[in-house]
């Protein structure tokens, strides 16, 4: 299926989801749904770099928090509409991704992974020491009660995240089927041979890092409005990193569907676990599932299905 029909179908599905959610007349659906959709974006974004090119990013939280703190920064300065904040967050996170990539992508994959972890901590330290955005005390962002047309604000946030998820999925799928996607796959399979075949590996890796980082930042931009109170240890929390790695690895890293499956599956399980048992056990579950899947089913759930060899021409 070409990209345009896919986009239209995705938007149609998104519209259906939104309508169903509204019909359920329960705000909790929107709150929980927002979280799951956020995971879809993060998992898909992570997979563009981690799954397609094979370079593991442990610093999902850094890019996510960058997006969130961009919002906080402007909220204190001059509140802007969320869509604009998302664009700014994309720019900021994308640029940081580019910079970090430029510093570290010439190294082996394992050094890159460690560097991403380092970046997350450096950024967290910078934010903690920056009083304008609240520092270690955190920042309050009051969520407006209502919004014209839609009614409750949480529905607005849900809709935004829904559209972001569509954007992320369509982007991932388009990349996958394009010339760029071939390039990414060769980097993952054998970077040395890719270079010898004419693939500009550094440039492609930088592109992947930028796109991946940008989407993570975009996912973070509405977050302060969702949560109301943002402080560094939650914004930079390890659960973001673990989830954004676990979801694609469990769902399958080779295509765009894997992260979506992983995000929905794990996202729903976590919502249930948090409500019925406790949030700590829920995190434990994610960690255990990650290890188990990585050891037993390296290609995730999608890897259990036989591969279809067809790829459309670039």
């Amino acid at each position, binding site marked *: 299926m070409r990209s345009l029909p896919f986009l239209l179908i995705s938007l149609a599905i998104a519209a259906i989801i939104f309508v169903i959610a509204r019909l359920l007349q329960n705000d909790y659906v929107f709150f929980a749904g927002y979280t799951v959709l956020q995971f879809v974006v993060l998992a898909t974004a992570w997979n563009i770099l981690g799954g397609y090119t094979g370079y593991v990013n442990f610093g999902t939280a850094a890019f996510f928090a960058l997006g969130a703190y961009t919002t906080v920064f402007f909220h204190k300065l001059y509140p802007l509409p969320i869509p604009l904040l998302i664009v700014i967050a994309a720019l900021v996170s994308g640029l940081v991704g580019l910079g970090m990539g430029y510093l570290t992508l010439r190294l082996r994959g394992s050094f890159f992974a460690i560097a991403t972890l380092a970046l997350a901590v450096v950024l967290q*330290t910078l934010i903690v020491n920056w009083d304008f955005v609240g520092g270690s005390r955190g920042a309050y962002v009051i969520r407006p009660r209502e919004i014209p047309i839609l009614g409750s604000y949480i529905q607005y946030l849900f809709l935004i995240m829904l559209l972001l998820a569509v954007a992320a999925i369509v982007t991932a799928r388009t990349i996958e089927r394009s010339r760029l996607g071939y390039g990414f796959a060769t980097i993952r399979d054998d970077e040395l041979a890719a270079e010898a075949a004419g693939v500009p590996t550094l440039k492609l890796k930088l592109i992947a890092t930028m796109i991946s980082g940008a989407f993570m930042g975009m996912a973070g931009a509405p977050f302060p409005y969702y949560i109301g109170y943002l402080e560094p240890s939650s914004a930079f929390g390890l659960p973001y990193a*673990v989830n954004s790695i*676990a979801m694609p690895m469990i769902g399958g890293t080779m295509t765009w569907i894997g992260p979506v499956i992983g995000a929905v599956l794990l996202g729903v399980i976590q919502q249930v676990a948090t409500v019925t048992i406790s949030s700590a056990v829920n995190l434990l579950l994610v*960690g255990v599932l990650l290890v188990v899947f990585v050891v037993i089913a390296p290609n995730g759930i999608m890897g259990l299905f036989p591969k279809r060899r067809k790829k459309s021409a670039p």
Partner: protein
Amino acid sequence: MLVSYDLVLNALIAGILLGGFYAAVTVGISIAFGILDIVNIAHPAFIILGSYIAYLVNSQFGLDPILTSIIALPVFYVLGAMVYQVYYLSFERRGQDALRGLAFFFGLLFITEVLLILVFGVDYRYVTAAYIDWPPLHLGVIDIPMRMLIPCLISLALLGTLQLFLSRTFTGRAIMAVAQDQLALKLMAANPIRIKRIAFGISIATAAMAGAFLIVIQPVEPSIGREYIGRVFAICVLGGLGSLPGTLIAAMLLGIVESFTATFYGPSWAPAVSFGILLLTLAVRPAGILGR
């Protein structure tokens, strides 16, 4: 800002002592990553585990933490060997890309932290030992706290022992060789997998002692491990992968830099120091896909 002479000197000495401790924390990674090329980012989790075990034994039986860790060495060794076996069967043997191995250790890191939170909670835990309460050693204007000196000295002993082991014994030299030439090792009738398993076991065993040092130096809580990931890899890379003397020197350097930062700029900047050094080192280090 007026810089006082004793402040500088004390920061220097504190940094050196800290460095000695950091060397013990890092030596496990020097073996696992530097020699075996296994990116065990869960190493700090094993260290924290060691800290909590020392805490448990100390609070129940009053046993000295460092002594506890020495007793715990074989247990951690076996744990390390088991972890390596799983790692080998799941990843190395299948020739899997590095991604899966990294995710595996990351998962272990995370699981350990969450389990510790579930069992012990997020409160800080500390140990009581005789020498922690001893008055500091006075050398002129310098104050040397015993809770820093003792771990540092024992750490140096640990490193010395390991260096001797790696350079003088057959197994030790086999470990050094396994990274470079597995075939040659096989021809010498040594099983590379077994050698690697021994090495990784030793790597995790050092975490037991490092954990004891940690809880002597400062109170611990489950998420502290994460701060050490950057320190450990920064030191490892800075000191030259796989070189124990290099590890010691790099650890001292990092300790000193962190100490000065904490003294003159405040402790909240300390995590950024090590991770910043790591990023800088990685950026400046000769690049190359084939090169190490």
